[in-house]
């Protein structure tokens, strides 16, 4: 019986992938348009959508402590509502950033012959975990308010940092030639 379930599961996996193949949009996802779009997203990131001070402010408990001790109930309520909206928006922005990075990575890595399958799988898992964590954090903030999960914000930030590090490792080889030029250039400069 276990054997039957095992082989039927393989069949189900194959069938599901065929189903998605049949329903798949014929528009090539990795077109130049998509690459430009991803690049624009990266430029937007680079411009600094989320400065560190902002994050500190959104989740800083001292703001809430101050409002709670000084302001009347109506103001406290309004503060909490507004802060919740801002926190949710922040998580959404982080999610968008991660998605842009993933999209960029997929679009670029597939064309590179020295792609490392182990790193790719690690990266795919990290991205998947991170996206789920973002969704969960959104839910927690939505239900419990902006100060409900300070540790989760930290954990998510750490995971994002880890994913970024792996992504950087995975893409590092792409720039090997450029790094060689840079290092020889700097040597030349130092010599002069």
């Amino acid at each position, binding site marked *: 019986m276990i054997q039957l379930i095992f082989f039927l599961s393989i069949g189900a996996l194959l069938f599901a992938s065929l189903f998605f193949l049949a329903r798949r949009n014929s528009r090539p996802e990795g077109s130049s348009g998509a*690459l430009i779009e991803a690049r624009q997203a990266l430029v937007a990131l680079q411009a600094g959508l989320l400065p*560190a001070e902002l*994050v500190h402010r959104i989740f800083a408990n001292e703001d809430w402590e101050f409002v709670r001790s000084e302001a009347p109930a109506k103001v406290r309520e309004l503060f909490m509502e507004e802060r919740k909206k801002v926190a949710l928006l922040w998580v959404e922005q982080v999610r968008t950033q991660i998605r842009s990075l993933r999209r960029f990575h997929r679009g670029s890595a597939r064309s590179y012959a020295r792609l490392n399958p182990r790193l790719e799988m690690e990266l795919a898992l990290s991205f998947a975990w991170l996206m789920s964590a973002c969704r969960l954090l959104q839910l927690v903030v939505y239900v419990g308010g902006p100060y409900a999960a300070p540790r989760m914000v930290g954990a998510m930030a750490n995971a994002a940092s880890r994913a970024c590090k792996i992504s950087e490792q995975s893409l590092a080889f792409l720039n090997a030639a450029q790094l060689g030029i840079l290092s020889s250039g700097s040597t030349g400069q130092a010599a002069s």
Partner: protein
Amino acid sequence: MWRWLVEGAGIAVELSLLVRALRVRLVPRYYFFYTYITSVMIGSAILMTILLRMPALYQKWYWPLQLATLVTGYGILLEILNHVLAPYPGAERFARISGLVAFGAILCFAMIAPRVIPQLSPGTVIEFERDLRSVQALFIFGLLALIFYYGIPIGKNMKGMVFGYGLYIFTILVSLALRSFAGASFTTIWSVVQPMTFDVSLVIWLVALWSYCPNPVPSPTIHLEEDYEALVTRTKSVIGHIRTYLGKAARA
């Protein structure tokens, strides 16, 4: 009567596929696929002749021919690698590694198993084929997962090829698993389902390969290498930026 009709229809569609391919010059483009079709057609013709003239020998010839077409069926997977993934060396490398592992497993099974078990009963041959088909199924699944993950475009010819073969592998795998579990009582259903599904796959191939539709390739107007290097430099800078910012957020 029903069986003859299904088998005869299959040979007719296989012949149509080959004639059409010769007319629109598809054979040199999809060499491995048409080698598979030719091997299947020859195998079916041999089996039909045996069934007509020497029915006692049918069982003896069925399994070796089935295993031969199973190995040539790997050609379809090679076609996908060559046509769909060729412009994407990274994804192709990924697929080749998993493909080689799967092919190695098939060869090991085909060459070692008969030596280890010389008295292969029909039951064990069924299980043997089921195992090999599951390797193929896993490989197609992995290949499609890769295509979806990296957003690789797939043309009409290739889509039809993968879909037709995948559908056949799915049906045969489920049938073999059920036959292996239920025993001889499932033989009647299995002997009808298998050739019928293959006929469906043949029709899918005939429609998908009616004319040549090249697989979409990335736009040549974009200088990927140059753009990519610039993009990497920028992304590295962005990653550094995000890391610093997230580090601060984690400490906040």
